[in-house]
């Protein structure tokens, strides 16, 4: 098993108001089998032992499903590997002596909490505006009463897999949250359960997205390229269609 030395340039910032800057670190003994976040763990252990402040970054499941991690690695959200969240990225994708730049996802709507940690509560507020089916507990009919065509169900599923990490926003030149918003709209609007509230939902979520300070979509498709679960940009086309239908 080969061990590498990795040079890191990591964004350090004490809080939303403080000024941030890149700090250089050299890390020896990096195993190719480590995940990217385990590599940062090792860096932090070293920093703590040296009496320095560890680097704060968000993570939880480390299985690519919770959407907590959201590092921008060498300018790319979640790093170089297609359809892979940063927590599932392994150091075998790098070589001895590489320099890696690590930044938080940058967007006006995602203020920095500390170092690489940002506040993504804007996403919660977009869901809050209408990202649900209004059904009370206990009011549901028998599950098999409404058949759903397999193709429709599978397509809805593809959109429903969004993990809410915010990579799409970080990658977009306009910091648009259209892929995130479009994915939830496409999931719910396409299913029979979601149809009755389609118009109301489409307007409310799109307007909330704008109110949060996310930019407009201008079809760069960077979002689709970095999405760790491969949400298709056609979600945005569907969002526009549903929004226009609802408005007129």
């Amino acid at each position, binding site marked *: 098993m080969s061990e590498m030395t990795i040079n890191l340039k990591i964004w350090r910032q004490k*809080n939303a108001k403080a000024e941030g800057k890149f700090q250089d670190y050299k890390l020896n003994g990096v*195993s190719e*089998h480590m*995940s990217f976040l*385990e*590599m940062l*763990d*090792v860096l*932090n*252990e070293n*920093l*703590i*032992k040296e009496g320095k402040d*560890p680097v*704060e970054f*968000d993570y*939880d*499941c*480390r*299985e*690519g*499903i*919770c*959407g*907590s991690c959201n590092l921008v690695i060498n300018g790319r959200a979640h790093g170089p590997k297609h359809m*892979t969240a940063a927590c*599932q990225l392994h150091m075998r994708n790098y070589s001895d002596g590489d320099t890696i730049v690590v930044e938080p996802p940058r967007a006006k709507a995602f203020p920095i909490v*500390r170092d690489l*940690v940002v*506040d*993504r*509560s804007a*996403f*919660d507020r977009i*869901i*809050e505006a209408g*990202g*649900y*089916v209004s*059904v009370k*507990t206990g*009011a*549901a*009919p028998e*599950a*098999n009463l*409404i058949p*759903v*065509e*397999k193709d429709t*169900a*599978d397509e*809805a*599923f593809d959109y*429903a897999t969004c*993990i*809410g990490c915010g990579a799409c926003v970080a990658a977009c030149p306009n910091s648009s949250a259209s892929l995130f918003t479009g994915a939830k709209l496409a999931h719910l609007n396409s*299913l029979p*359960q*979601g149809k009755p509230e389609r118009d109301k939902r489409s307007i409310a979520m799109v307007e909330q997205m704008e109110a949060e300070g996310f930019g407009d979509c201008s079809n760069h498709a960077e979002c689709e390229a970095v999405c760790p679960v491969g949400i298709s940009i056609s979600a945005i086309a569907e969002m526009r269609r549903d929004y226009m239908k609802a408005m007129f």
Partner: protein
Amino acid sequence: MKLESNVPSGPLEEKWSRHLKDLKLVAPNNKRKYKVIVVGTGLAGASAASSLAELGYEVSTFCIQDSARRAHSIAAQGGINAAKNYPNDGDSVWRLFYDTIKGGDYRSREANVYRLAQNSNSIIDQAVAQGVPFAREYGGLLDNRSFGGAQVSRTFYARGQTGQQLLLGAYQSMMRQVHAGNIKNYPRHEMLDLVVIDGKARGIITRNLVDGSINRWQADAVVLCTGGYGNVFYLSTNAKNSNVTAAWRCHKRGAAFANPCMVQIHPTCIPVSGDYQSKLTLMSESLRNDGRVWVPRDPEDSRKPNDIPEEDRYYYLEEKYPSFGNLVPRDVASRNAKMVTDDGMGVGETGLAVYLDFRDAIKREGKEAIAAKYGNLFDMYQNITDDNPYETPMRIFPAVHYTMGGLWVDYNLMSNIPGLFVAGEANFSDHGANRLGASALMQGLSDGYFIVPYTIGNYLADVDLTKVTTEHDAFSEAASSSSETLDKLLSVNGDKTVVEFHRELGKIMWDKVGISRSKEGLEEAIEEIRALRDEFYENVRVPGDATYYNKYLEFAHRVADFFELAELMAVDALDRDESCGCHLREEYQTEEGEALRNDDEFSYVSAWEYGGVNGKLNTTLHKEPLEFEFVELKQRSYK
């Protein structure tokens, strides 16, 4: 301490419906006068919060993640059980109940488990109505698959992401109530203490993880949905931030902790690769539907797996358990993996792995069909290990996955502290000594959607609550004790990091309080835990201070609680002089190496009362006898 299970009388099938009839109600216009705090926003928390808010209570939710949607329920892969009997293969509420109570090796309450099976169908209805995209057949109706420990296909699934889809459904319902103004939602807030006034739960203390402030929150009832404590082992399949702190602080305030030694070790996880390892990744149990588990018969066999002919492969589960084969329950599969690796037959660099082989399934059904079922899991495996499971067998090994133990609750899911309700993995209630696959999601949602919303009303309708504010002495005392705990950890400034301590603690637990346990090993573990805990308070180094976002400070106080829990787990395992389910005491095995229960002496729930730590953990055992009226206790057999 008095532990009344409050199980209603009457026939098993009617207990819950009769109880519902007897429960007292709070009038609609009075509900908004009651404040309910829900801690944790996983399946149990999000479903309880949304349901309570729909009913009209004033609800506040707290979670440690940056969004309620990220709770660890999201990582559940395989599925959720329900007794719909859509495949017409003879399933029923009774059969789901029976499989679950038998799977738990008869160490859970009959009435609770039966109610769980009864609620299972409503959960599927609810989730489908919310737009949860379960797998469907070409006719447009819902699809089912089989899962470990059952001989019927009753598992509903959403590819390998069932937990994510169910949680998003519950989270969206919750956000709908946030929008309606019925829920106030506080992410990045960690519960540090329970406030008990006049013997009743009246609020909580939290730390705002962003600015470090300690906050007080008053309520009329608290619902704890903070998950399990598998991370006491350091390496587990749990999310990195999963912890026992909220539950443990309730325990310190008087809530009994039940069956702490009952820990499920999941058989199909990706093996450990090095010291830097931070967590283990589960491969869904559904893989055992088509994958065949084997090791080389000859421990010296160093051939590549595909070069080993059929006669030299030991398909140990199929040989030992012909009727269940690779689908034996999790505890049986894990124990057998340990046995073959202990005998030197393990594979891979460390020898701590067995093969899970899809060669025959691919030959039978084609690569595409297998990819349709397990594609995302295969990709995940390949991404982590750099091996292609379509071409070479997966290497798997057991890992800590779920904790059946938790805070003690009665039939109403209320702890022995009135007003403190506990739901989901955080309570001990339904899985006994072993949980069957696809039943954690079922229990979290049954508790949250269909039990707590009713039983909380019954409590509030009847209880006499004095008016209190957060200025009450009990709030001040709890807030200052929370601050002191953090200051104490920050002031040590020793040489060893929190992670180093946690890893050492985890090793003691895995070696001596893990898959198999012995009297001697447990006694050693207790001594080692105490010594390491003393060292922790003398030599831990926690960076920074408590006034800002400081993840290593969070870890430090969680590990401090794990140190106390670890001792309790070993004490509980030592007390239980029998084997049952996941709790295998080496001294008590059948001739075939299966768990040998002792129903005459150990047919009880162990509920421990906290008595402080003074070098050793002081704790008192209370026993809730388990009575079985409706099932006959048998030696479990999956042969």
